[in-house]
């Protein structure tokens, strides 16, 4: 049984953001990057399946600043192998899921796994389109919003979650591409000693036969949230504050 798990870096959006000069993206110069949390879940699910079914796990990522560190982390977490897919930054206009899907798909064809796990969403994959794109490129079955994965010979049983607490269980033939929402256990902590042991390890490149696609749409403008009105702080003792809140509620028409 072979599992491929896709790992993506995404900008840390909890920081103060600035827009790029053309106003179509955030300025990535001063911002930190971290592993997409859904891909984190995908990695954990892959390692859980390895532990329960004896699979081998291969983590792949598009080469970028910090991708080797991210993949070392995957090795420390329990992946058996990791590859970077080379991409010349100057050659690529966009890093959207549509643009990069052919590269991931080519890597998947080369590695020929039974199961591909990828996080359902990321900051640059807001509609969860990567998993369907990969299904289209490979011609394999694909299923997203998955919260449980179990493997048997030639088959995967997955649980797909819907709004309102409803869920459905599917049985699909492998190989299959899964857009994972959560792993069956929270991602585990990886001790620094494991990272330290991997310090000198080189993450190999995986040469693939494929090129990025062109985007069919692009953003025109991006705006930061309007922060003109902040919170109002009331001072004084409890009575004063209660009076102020009452007055405000009256003024806004919430109470008579």
């Amino acid at each position, binding site marked *: 049984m072979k599992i491929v798990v896709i790992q993506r870096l995404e900008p*840390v959006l*909890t*920081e103060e953001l600035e827009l790029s000069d053309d106003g179509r993206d955030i300025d990535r110069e*001063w*911002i*930190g990057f*971290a*592993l997409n949390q859904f891909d984190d879940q995908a990695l954990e699910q892959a390692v859980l399946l390895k532990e329960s079914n004896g699979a081998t796990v291969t983590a792949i990522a598009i080469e970028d600043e910090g991708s080797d560190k991210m993949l070392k*982390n995957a090795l420390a977490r329990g992946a058996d192998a990791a590859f970077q897919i080379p991409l010349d930054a100057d050659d690529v206009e966009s890093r959207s899921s549509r643009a990069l899907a052919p590269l991931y798909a080519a890597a998947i064809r080369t590695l020929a796994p039974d199961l591909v796990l990828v996080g359902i969403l990321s900051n640059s994959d807001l509609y969860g389109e990567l998993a369907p794109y990969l299904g289209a490129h490979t011609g394999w079955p694909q299923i997203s919003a998955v919260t449980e994965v179990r493997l048997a010979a030639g088959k995967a049983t997955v649980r797909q979650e819907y709004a309102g607490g409803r869920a459905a269980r599917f049985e699909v033939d492998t190989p299959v591409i899964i857009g994972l929402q959560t792993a069956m256990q*929270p991602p*585990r*902590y*990886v*001790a*620094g*000693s*494991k*990272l*330290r*042991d991997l*310090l000198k390890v080189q993450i190999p490149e995986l040469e693939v036969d494929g090129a990025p696609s062109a985007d069919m749409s692009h953003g025109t403008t991006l705006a930061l949230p309007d922060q003109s009105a902040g919170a109002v702080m009331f001072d004084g003792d409890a009575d004063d504050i209660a009076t102020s809140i009452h007055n405000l509620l009256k003024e806004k028409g919430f109470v008579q």
Partner: protein
Amino acid sequence: MQTMLLWLVTVGALAVFARRFWLRLAPLSRARAANRTDQPMERLTGALADIGLHRRLLRFTWSGVLHFMIFTSFLVLSTAILQAFGSGLFPGFSLAVIGGDTWIALLQDIFALLMLIGLAMAAWQRFVRKPARFVGSKTGDATLIYLLAGGIVLTMLLEFATAIVMSGAPHAWRPVSTVLSHLLIGTGMTAQSASTAHLVFFWLHILIILTFLIYIPGSKHRHMMLAAFNLYFRPLTPKGQLPPPPTKLAEADTGTVETYQDFTWKDLLDTLSCTECGRCQSVCPAYAAGAPLSPKSLIMDLRDGLLTHEGVIDGDAHLPIIGGAISQETLWSCTTCRACMEVCPVHIEHVPKIVQLRRTMVEDGALEPMLQTAMTNFQSQGNSFGKPAKQRARWTKDLSFKPKDARNEPVDILWFVGDFASFDTRAQELTRMVAELLHKAGVDFGILYDGERNSGNDVRRVGDEGLFELLAQQNIDTLAGCTFNRIMTTDPHSLNALKSEYPALGANYDVMHYAQLLLDLIKAGKLTPRTDAGLTVTYHDPCYLGRYNGGFDAPRDLMAALGHTLKEMPRNRENSFCCGAGGGRIWMDDVVFKERPSENRIKEALELGEITHFVVSCPKDVVMYTAAIQNLGVGDRLAVRDLAELVTLSVA
């Protein structure tokens, strides 16, 4: 006949004693190595001074005094034991030739009385005064010890007294026994009945001594035999330097502690040396806060777990250490403040054992969620805030000048800023104050900008040794590319790592706390404070500045130089009470604390009455105590002031 019988019971008792002792000590021979045999003279003199002067014991006056009485009496009365067994086993043996009937007899009489008073004081302490530190100790064991020790002394005195009755004349060198002999005569004892009684008391004396001997190996009174060794084998490395994980014996060895044999022999000796006195428990901030940790119970549980594992006492021999003998919550409760180790009379090392067990949990990935987030942030960004390294020096944006980049140009003082001082918004204000003060005083200093990483001090104490090494090595490599004379930091945790931990990795620096630098600048006339606006303040000693690195005086001298009047809290200097943030606790959920240590501390300050300011010298303390004052709603009575604020207000 009597001699034969005495030989029989003595040899028999010694054999049982030896076996009982060996059963408990044998695991040490199978435990991991610990290098504790270097510097023999230093070890010997320190141990003898600690024993002879009762240095740590006397910090608790009542207990210290009574222990000193019992201890010295035991030494003196061992001559009586020698006399009793010597004369019984080897007819004709007597100490009389060296004064056994004169000055030694006098000493024995006096110290027998002292011993009885000491035992009475101990019983009074345990059964009447009942200090909270005895909660969890084994009262039955202690009681039996009092009875046996008292029995030994009483039978000895009665043996002497009956001898005096037999002789028909008072013993000039045995005043206590003589008084006792008069009492016996008063009850109608004759010289003849005294002869029988003498024999009875002799045998009772012998039998109680031998019972005591047999009992000791299974009792906390083992410390009579082991405490001196535990003192001798105490750590001589800097207080702020944790022992590394055990050396891996084989490739498959994880270097973690899963079973008792994974501890070092010194760790196991520690557990066997514990006297259950509870001094550690009485100073532990986690225990005081209601967290599931008592350093005393931890050591006792490890000891009982070890002995159960060895089959010496009943119980589940396969109970794991973590999650069995010791709960995970107990291990995560520790703030690593070192108060327990500082106060332990037999120099037990609680904190290294806790960290060692934490290392095992970290290796297994068993972290509580909040802590896992912080630790993951360290791995990805090099700081607990999860902020990009590029934002580390953002606090410099509002300065009146741009600090030098120590990576690009030589500086006199390299300022290692630390995480809280760099990223926490409240602490940032103080960081800027320090920068402006140094600038004003013309100090040639620089910072590492985005080249700095967390020092790893608390990461190491959380138990992630590998991550500590990664962070430390990054800092050491960065510092190796800089030219500077000294390192200064406002953060005691960083100070501890740079000063005490990094030398073990081969990096030695001259490290100072900002309190010292600011004091030096004032003394040198580079900063001129006004001293006419003195406040009445109290001061909190940060654990990693004070207890760990001895930085008690500079902050106090600095406050005095600014004209402030310091009113000490009862728990000050070595006995300072931790704010609760150390050892990684600042990144963990504090629901384990029923009363946060920081709030306990603020209440202590409020009890001083007339003070208006609570002075701190650690960025974490600023955060902890500001929150504590808010939570207690006492902002109108007390305000937190960092030393940097005091100096800034004074030199403005």
